[in-house]
Each structure stands twice: as structure tokens, then as C-alpha cells.
């Protein structure tokens, strides 16, 4: 444990430094805990002691927050903390064998810390590298494109206790893999242009209204300045790119019109918590189009009259933080952020980056706001909605990364032009994160209305059995439906497009997704907290050969309950992958219905596997014969 023991004074020094940098504000709790862990490798009781006294918040609150996020450790997890991405695409690319290889190389048991306290190896949900998997995180830094050779090199570096900053830069290279670009990814855009163009698009210069006045009075349509920008967004018919497809103009208008209490300000939040397994488009937008995204946020701030902005960056994308901060610094220098942006009176806006810590549920906007406020990421009771009572009770818009990028393009080129692209109900283009069984995984930008078949042809997919569109919470599309289209009128999507060829077992795909939801349930409401675990147990029961028609009907009942009683979308959609695959790939399930009548899930022989492992025995006498299933 020596490696994980820091002197109490050293820990106190780190805590004090971090806390003062975050202005002693408990609303920055998640950021404070992250930075403490980055310095100390874990969040020790001593660190919590010090935090409690310097921040003046009860220990229960600190421990409650630290205990919520997967990437926070209140027990030592080693100097090197390796987490293998365990999305279905990583599995298809052989992540399990690579993890085994690393564990063997380092003499460490999966999920445990090595005896010398040097390293731990575990797994985590999709890290957003599906186009270049298998991938892992080491101390929350991404390494993609893993091979057996690379694993051996990593093991060597860890054994030699080489600091992460001295590892070869090539390890950390992440490709954009843009395969098809359209209006967004091809946009000819210079920072600042979009805001100026949007503002200038007023019918009459004389009617230009300063933000100071107009947001209070809600000037009639057709006015210049902020209202002109809002009109343009509405005219474009832009809908949210996070999957739900709420009309962006309406959201912005509601926030703009929300009453502002004294001392409050309006807030713009960019949701970069891209946690849906199979999605990675925001990674590419933030890597290579950060100016476009920030400009879209600035346009939004100008339109709604907001003065403060946040990017909530998922913990898996921590490696982008320095790059994004550098872009923000440049934009401040160029007066694209700050006060009176580009000389526009009243256009005051700046952006701060918050990094998440491994919680899919924080992609839900009210959970995201809770996390921004330094709390556990539990979705709020609604109403009230964030547009009136969001971050610290202030009017807040939360939009997807891609939505802001699109908003910048609309401000630049106009709403009518944008509305003419795509379909009647789905204006513009959509970025698809294509991965799985195809020759060219990566980012594909299409006008809405593209068919599944077209995407499959373009990415070189062959012998395709199914496509999971929009991740586990989306829809599983079978061959007969490949002429369906991407669009809010048919298949809405946040962007994931995961391809499975005919050699894949769709039951195991669904089981992987069910495990994901169980792991990511926030635990707030009974149906989702317990229901996702029950569902996981049922799928495992089928996997082990103890399934019967009884279990089928149990799955269906659970689904109904989760949909009607759950607190948020996570619970509502947790059964989707199972129901879809039961409906469309029933043979994959029937193959596993080995039992005609109800059979208990408990299997004595499987339960003894821990004892066999401990004693190092696996001979026939160490097994029991059972009526079903048998060995694990």
C-alpha cells in the first residue's frame, strides 16, 4: 500500500490548492474531487477530512457525491488504474482476451488491486472509441486501437513505473475517421462570423435592439439582434441532436422569456456527456470543430440573453480538456468570449468546462445540472424544467454538442437554407457514429432521410444481420427494415449506428446492453434500481441455460413496469434492447429456452466456481452434476 499512502500534510496541501482554485465553492465539488484524485490517485479519508473543513460541507455530502461516480475511488485503486472499454463493439474486437493478457502480464486479478498497490485492471462502459477499438482508459486517459503488442508495451511501462506523461505520444493518438462530410463538417467558417452574420440578419438596421432591453420585454418577431438570431433558428426547424428531438427554437425562447430573479443570470450548457454506447461524434466535433461548437454556444447565449456557459465533458474525454481550454483562451483573446463580444454591446458570455466522472445518467439534462452543481447525478423531479429553473435555479438551456454546431451554421447561412436540407420534419444533417461489422467505421454526415441500407453500403458492411440505431436506448433494426430512414419521422437517433453481421449472437448483444443499464442506473427510483438488476439476472439466467417461457413473460412484465413507473428515460428505455431482439431475433432466445417449465436461476455447481478457483481445482470431482446448464 506504500504507493498509495501520502502524508496527511501533503494531501492537505493538494486539497487546499484545488479548493482555492475552485473559489471554495461546493458547487464545484465534482471538479474538486476529480483534481484531488488526479494528484493523490484516490480520495482518501484524510482528503475528505480536509475538504470538510475547508469547504464547510458535511462529510456525508462529500462521500455521497464521491460514491456516485464510477471514476471516483474512496479506496486505493493503484498508481495505474486501467479500465477496458466494455461496449459490445469492444467485445467483438476481442477486448476480453486483451484484458486477460494484461492481467496475466501484471500478475493482477481482474477488478482487484495488485498486491504491491501498483495497478488495478477493470472494465468500464463504452469510452467512445468504437471506431478504433478495443480501447482502454489509464488514469482516465484514452488509449485506442489496442493490440496484443500494445498491451505488452503497456504492461512493461507500468511494471517500470514509468509516469504516464512519459509514455509514447503515439499511444494516445485518437483518429477522427471522418468518412463522409456534408454541410456541417465541410463548413467554411471563420471564428466570429456566425455570430456577426446572425446578428446582422435583421430586416432593418434601425430596429436593432440591444440585448439589455429585448430579453426583458420579449420584442416582437422580426426585430434585429437576439430576436433575429432566434427567428433564424426557428425558421431552420432545428431539433435537438441528443436524440429526443425537441425543437431548439422553442427551448431557447422559453429560456429567454423565463423570469429572471435579481442576481440571477441565464445559463447555456453544452451536453458533451456522450455516454450512449456506440456514439463518438461529439468526440470528433470537440477535437476538430471546437470553434464551431463554442460559436454555437455563443450564438445561443446571445439569442437567449445568457451570460454564463458550461461544457459538461464526459470523464472519458478528459484527454480533450487541455485542447478545449486552449481554444477558449484563444477565443477570449480574440474577444469572441468575454464582455461586449466583437464589440456588440451587452453580448457578455464566457464558458467553463466541467468534466464528468463516469456516470451515463448525467447525459439526462436535469441529472447533468445536478452534477454541474457538484451533487449526485440524480434526475430531478419535473416540472419545473431547466429552461425556467436550471443551474442553481436559474433559467438554463441544455443542448447537445452537435445542436450547437448546427446552430452556428444556421446563424452563418440562414434558417431557410438549412430548412431546405433533409426532410420535412427533420431539417439539416445528422452525424452518425458508425461502428461494428463494417470496413470503414467512423463519422458519416448525411442529410436526414438517408436509409439504413445506404449507410450500410457506404461504410462497407456486408452480410448485415442488424443495426442498433441510437445505442441501447434506441432501436434494433433488422434486415427487413433496412429501407427505413434516419429522421424524427421514422428512426430518430442521437448518432450511434452499430452494425452486427450474421455471425453475431443478438441475444448476447442485448445482454451486454442490459448489463450496461444495470450498471448505470442511478438508484434513485425503485423500479429502475431494482428492475434493471432483476432484468440482468433474468438475461444471465437465460445465458446459463436455465431459461423457460416463464422467464420470457417475466421480462415482458418487467419492461412494462419500468416503462410506466421509472423516474427518467434510463428506466423507460432499459428494456428496449431486449424487447426489440425478442421481437426480431426470437430464435436467438429460443435457442436458450432449454427448460419447458420454471427452473430456478440458482445453480449449485456454478456457485462453487469461486471455491474451485480458490483451491485451484477443476477436476471432475470438484463439480456437481445438475439437471440443467451445468458448468459455467
Amino acid at each position: 500500500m506504500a504507493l498509495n499512502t501520502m502524508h496527511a500534510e501533503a494531501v492537505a496541501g493538494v486539497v487546499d490548492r484545488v479548493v482555492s482554485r475552485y473559489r471554495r465553492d461546493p458547487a464545484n465539488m465534482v471538479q474538486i474531487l476529480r483534481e484531488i484524485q488526479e494528484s493523490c490517485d484516490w480520495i482518501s479519508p484524510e482528503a475528505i477530512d480536509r475538504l470538510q473543513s475547508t469547504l464547510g460541507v458535511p462529510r456525508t455530502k462529500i462521500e455521497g457525491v464521491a460514491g456516485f461516480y464510477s471514476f471516483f475511488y474512496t479506496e486505493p485503486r493503484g498508481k495505474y488504474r486501467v479500465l477496458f472499454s466494455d461496449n459490445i463493439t469492444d467485445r467483438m474486437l476481442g477486448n476480453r482476451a486483451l484484458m486477460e493478457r494484461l492481467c496475466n502480464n501484471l500478475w493482477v486479478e481482474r477488478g482487484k488491486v495488485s498486491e504491491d498497490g501498483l495497478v488495478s485492471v477493470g472494465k468500464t462502459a463504452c469510452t467512445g472509441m468504437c471506431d478504433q477499438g478495443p480501447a482502454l482508459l489509464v488514469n482516465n486517459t484514452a488509449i485506442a486501437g489496442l493490440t496484443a503488442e500494445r498491451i505488452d508495451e503497456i504492461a512493461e511501462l507500468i511494471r517500470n513505473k514509468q509516469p504516464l506523461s512519459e509514455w509514447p505520444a503515439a499511444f494516445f493518438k485518437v483518429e477522427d475517421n471522418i468518412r463522409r462530410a456534408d454541410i456541417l463538417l465541410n463548413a467554411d467558417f471563420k471564428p466570429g462570423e456566425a455570430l456577426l452574420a446572425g446578428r446582422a440578419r435583421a430586416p432593418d438596421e434601425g430596429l436593432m435592439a440591444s440585448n439589455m432591453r429585448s430579453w426583458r420585454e420579449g420584442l416582437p418577431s422580426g426585430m434585429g439582434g437576439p430576436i433575429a438570431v432566434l427567428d433564424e433558428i426557428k425558421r431552420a426547424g432545428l431539433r435537438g441532436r441528443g436524440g429526443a428531438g425537441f425543437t431548439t427554437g422553442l427551448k431557447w425562447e422559453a429560456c429567454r422569456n423565463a423570469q429572471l430573479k435579481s442576481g440571477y443570470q441565464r445559463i447555456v450548457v453544452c451536453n458533451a456527456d456522450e455516454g450512449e454506447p456506440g456514439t463518438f461524434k461529439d468526440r470528433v466535433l470537440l477535437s476538430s470543430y471546437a470553434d464551431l461548437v463554442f460559436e454555437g454556444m455563443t450564438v445561443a447565449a446571445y439569442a437567449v440573453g445568457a451570460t454564463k456557459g458550461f461544457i459538461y465533458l464526459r470523464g472519458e474525454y478528459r484527454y480533450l480538456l487541455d485542447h478545449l481550454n486552449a481554444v477558449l483562451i484563444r477565443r477570449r483573446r480574440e474577444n469572441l468570449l468575454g464582455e461586449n463580444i466583437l464589440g456588440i454591446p451587452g453580448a457578455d458570455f464566457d464558458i467553463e468546462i466541467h468534466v464528468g466522472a463516469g456516470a451515463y445518467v448525467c447525459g439526462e439534462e436535469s441529472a447533468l445540472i445536478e452534477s454541474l452543481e457538484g451533487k449526485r447525478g440524480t434526475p430531478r423531479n419535473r416540472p419545473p424544467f431547466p429552461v425556467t429553473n436550471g443551474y442553481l435555479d436559474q433559467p438554463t438551456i441544455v443542448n447537445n454538442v452537435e445542436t450547437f454546431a448546427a446552430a452556428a451554421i444556421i446563424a452563418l447561412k440562414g434558417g431557410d437554407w438549412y430548412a431546405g436540407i433533409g426532410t420535412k420534419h427533420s431539417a439539416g444533417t445528422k452525424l452518425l457514429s458508425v461502428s461494428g461489422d463494417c470496413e470503414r467505421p467512423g463519422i458519416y454526415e448525411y442529410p436526414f432521410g438517408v436509409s439504413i441500407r445506404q449507410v450500410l453500403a457506404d461504410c462497407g458492411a456486408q452480410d448485415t444481420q442488424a443495426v442498433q440505431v441510437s445505442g441501447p436506448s434506441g432501436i434494433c433494426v433488422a434486415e427487413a427494415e433496412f429501407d427505413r430512414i434516419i429522421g424524427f419521422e421514422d428512426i430518430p437517433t442521437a448518432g450511434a449506428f452499430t452494425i452486427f453481421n450474421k455471425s453475431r449472437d443478438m441475444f448476447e448483444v442485448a445482454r451486454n446492453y442490459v448489463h450496461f443499464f444495470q450498471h448505470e442506473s442511478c438508484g434513485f427510483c425503485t423500479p429502475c434500481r431494482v428492475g434493471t438488476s432483476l432484468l440482468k439476472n433474468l438475461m444471465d439466467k437465460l445465458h446459463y441455460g436455465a431459461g423457460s417461457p416463464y422467464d420470457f413473460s417475466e421480462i415482458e412484465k418487467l419492461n412494462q413496469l419500468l416503462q410506466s413507473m421509472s423516474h427518467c428515460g434510463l428506466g423507460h428505455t432499459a428494456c428496449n434492447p431486449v424487447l426489440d431482439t425478442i421481437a426480431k431475433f426470437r430464435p436467438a432466445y429460443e435457442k436458450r429456452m432449454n427448460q419447458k417449465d420454471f427452473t430456478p436461476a440458482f445453480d449449485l455447481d456454478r456457485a462453487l466456481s469461486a471455491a474451485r478457483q480458490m483451491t485451484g481445482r477443476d477436476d471432475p470431482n470438484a463439480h456437481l452434476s445438475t439437471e440443467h446448464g451445468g458448468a459455467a
Partner: protein
Amino acid sequence: MSLTFTLDGKTIPFVDGETIIQAAGKAGVFIPHLCYHPEFKPHGSCKLCTVKVNGRHTASCTMRAMPGMVVESDTEEINAERRALTQMLFVEGNHFCPSCEKSGNCQLQATAYHLGMMSPHYDHFFPNRPVDATHPDVLLDFNRCILCSLCVRASRDVDGKNVFALSGRGIKTHLIVNAKSGKLGDTNFALADKAAQVCPVGVILKKRQGFAVPIGERKYDKAPISEAVTEGK
């Protein structure tokens, strides 16, 4: 003009700002609930109080009443869903009613009776949850915790002590206490605290006093929870 909505066909008056469950309670209509308590800010997590408002499921403890709302509560469908949630709570923890000090005075047990729950139905999880007997006057038996957070709210909002909080996530969510050792004995918790009075199940128990009231005379022996709650809360 007085505001009203209908609940299972009955007209319920309410004042602006009241939730459905508040208005129903005043009108003497019982809606099953566990994490809701009239003296505290609603939490909306147990979902037992879910009703259908204009055909859509929503928690009645957090949904404000609106004029003309059509609310369904005491229906076959909704009660079956509530029963399933109750069963989930039973299998999630370790609930052995016959040996529990709170038996007969337990809201979870009484709610299960009210909903006609005949078995736990699902496979038990049998979690390992050690008890905490470090406090001189109070025993914590986490085996029975249903994560309603009433003690959290009472300690924070009434006692001003923050003795309790929820930590962990998902199925690993659990109650913690405000001490480096994690033990109640090292906190400033006192038997007189509001937080010591609000546990709807048998987690927070007074030491040296158990099974004080004979079977037949316990709270829910005398009247089912549906009457006990609406009359005296």
C-alpha cells in the same frame, strides 16, 4: 372559485400549489406511499404513489394538482404495479418480518398487506449489510433500508445535523452516516432527533426496547394503513 380535480371519479378540492397526494390526503383518500411524508419536501423516489394523470403515469407526491385533472389511483392496473414495486423492495433488502422489531408498525409491511402482496415473487438479492450498534441509544439495521431518505431529510432540514446521506449508485446505493469511521456512535445523533422518529421501516431502532406492544395491539393491527395514514398521518 374553488379548484378541483377528479380522483377515481371523486371530486377533490385543492389550493394552488398543493400536490395530488396532499389534496387527496386532506379529502380522506389514501394513496399508498413510502418515501413521502407530509412534513417533508417530497422526494419522489419510491414511486409507490404513482397515479395516472390524464392517462400518464406520474408520482402523485411531486405532481401539483391542476384544475380539471383526471386522476386514476385505486385501479387494478396501478395497484398491480405498486405491488410489484413493493415486492422489489422486499427482495432488494433483507426483510424478515416475523423477527423484526418494527413488525406491525412498519409501513412497508402494512403497504404490502394493503396491496395484497402474497409473496416476494422475485428472487431475493440477499445483500450483505452489517448492522451498526455503536451508538449508545440507537441501533441501525441497514438490512431493512428502502432508501426513502426520510432520515436524510429530517436530519438535514429539521435537526440541522446531516447525520445521514445516500451514497453509492444503482443497486449499490446505501445509507451512510456522518463520521470518518462510518459509525453512528461517532456522530452527534441523538434519540430525540427528528431523524430518529421518521424511519418507515425497521432501520433506526431504539435500543433496549423491542416487541413492546403485543401482537394484536400494534399500530397496523388496529387499522390498515389506508385508514391510519389518512386519519392521523
